[in-house]
């Protein structure tokens, strides 16, 4: 049975190679119809405004404790921001869990500045009328790792577990439409409407997808973080709302980041 299945898969492979080759020839002129648009957008990225605000927020005494985030340990020692984002998510012994950038920022707001968790989470996403500290701080911290090589090793059991869980979630199909993350992001060279879809299950696609986040979303006029990106993906998957900083969100980010290892960080980027 299994052998027969394999044979069919191999026949499928040969056929796939043929169709892929011919579809490339056909698709060439329209390979990336929006390339001209993206080229014209250039590097004038309004995310700079979030970076500036984040930098100011980082050193401003805030919260009931009236202290800044300058003693926040992003994994490279208290107060070290340079390069820190290129090594997140990681396991933090002081919290006993794997954390991504946003959950670590939240942790520092709560433990250092004494801001109640619920209070801090109120403005997890900005909406024009109300700015988000997370989005500004994440933009600033990410900017400080621009040009660095992403290195997120699975160097302890917690990271291994997070990665395995993230991977399972990536392929988890559910909801009215049977979608998983892999439905859109598990194949190479596909697009939805005109948007190229990076294949996040392998290195090249994961690097392309991950290295530019957080990003200024042109459609929203806001800088969005990976936490937002994941939440919005699940909304489009027709699933309930992914909680900010939830175990699932960190696990998925760990899966994507580890797959993207070796990426040259280029965040905050600019996306559709």
């Amino acid at each position: 049975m299994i052998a027969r299945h394999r044979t069919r898969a191999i026949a499928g492979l040969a056929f796939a190679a043929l169709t892929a080759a011919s579809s490339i020839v056909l698709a060439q002129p329209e390979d990336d119809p929006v390339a001209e648009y993206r080229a014209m957008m250039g590097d004038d990225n309004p995310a700079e405004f979030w970076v500036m605000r984040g930098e100011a927020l980082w050193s401003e005494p805030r919260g009931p404790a009236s202290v800044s985030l300058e003693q926040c340990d992003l994994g490279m020692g208290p107060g070290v921001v340079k390069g820190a984002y290129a090594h997140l998510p990681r396991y933090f012994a002081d919290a006993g869990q794997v954390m991504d950038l946003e959950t670590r920022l939240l942790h520092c707001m709560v433990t250092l500045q004494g801001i109640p968790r619920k209070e801090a989470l109120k403005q997890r996403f900005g909406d024009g009328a109300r700015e988000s500290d997370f989005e500004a701080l994440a933009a600033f911290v990410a900017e400080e790792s621009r040009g660095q090589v992403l290195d997120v090793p699975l160097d302890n059991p917690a990271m291994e577990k997070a990665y395995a869980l993230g991977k399972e979630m990536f392929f988890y199909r559910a909801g009215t439409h049977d979608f998983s993350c892999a439905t859109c992001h598990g194949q190479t060279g596909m697009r939805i409407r005109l948007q190229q879809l990076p294949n996040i299950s392998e290195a090249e696609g994961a690097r392309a997808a991950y290295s530019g986040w957080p990003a200024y979303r042109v459609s929203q006029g806001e800088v969005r973080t990976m936490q937002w990106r994941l939440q919005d993906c699940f909304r489009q998957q027709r699933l309930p709302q992914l909680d900010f900083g939830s175990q699932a969100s960190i696990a998925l980010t760990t899966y994507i980041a580890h797959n993207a290892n070796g990426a040259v960080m280029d965040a905050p980027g600019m996306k559709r």
Partner: protein
Amino acid sequence: MNRAFTLAGLIGAAIMLPALASAGLAGTNDGAAAVLQQSFTAKGQAGMDRLDQDDVQRLCSRAPDGPALSEKEYAEIMASEEASIRYPADGQYLGDWRAGEKIAQNGKGFQSSDDPTQSSGGNCYACHQLAKGEVAYGTIGPSLYLYGKLRGNDAETQRYTYAKIYNSNAFLPCSSMPRFGHKGILDEQQIKDVVALLLDPQSPVNAE
């Protein structure tokens, strides 16, 4: 029809090929399911029950480097999904291609942010090329441009097309395409309208 099915099957097999260079997981989704329950909150029309998997979803959630579907599982999915298809009682498959085009363009419906009183779309253009005039089409699914012109508009093709939209997994287990009829995303009339978009000689899909 047979040939069309084989083609779809082969493309589907190709889609599921890419492998991951990391350790495989056990084939169970129990770990993920528990974490999911703790990591999500019901919102709008998207309740927590949306996280529960049916048999097909469970079987189709394996990573590409995990165990492949066995012949038996493959056949079981096809049989159960084929049995789910409710063909129109009036025996008519062709609706209004103009309404079908609107359904093909509309990607709304069933999201936590969507108004549940509005009728939902099929969002066909997200994954397929259809009418030539719409350049913003996706490539996750095969091009359906000239679908009716190439296949003809006989009763068997109409019935197959209706069934494929109703439940893609009856023909290709673990297809990326939603099971529009089976999951209640589109109603009978909407599926007929999309069939017309694909097969009606007047439809822009069949205009060169």
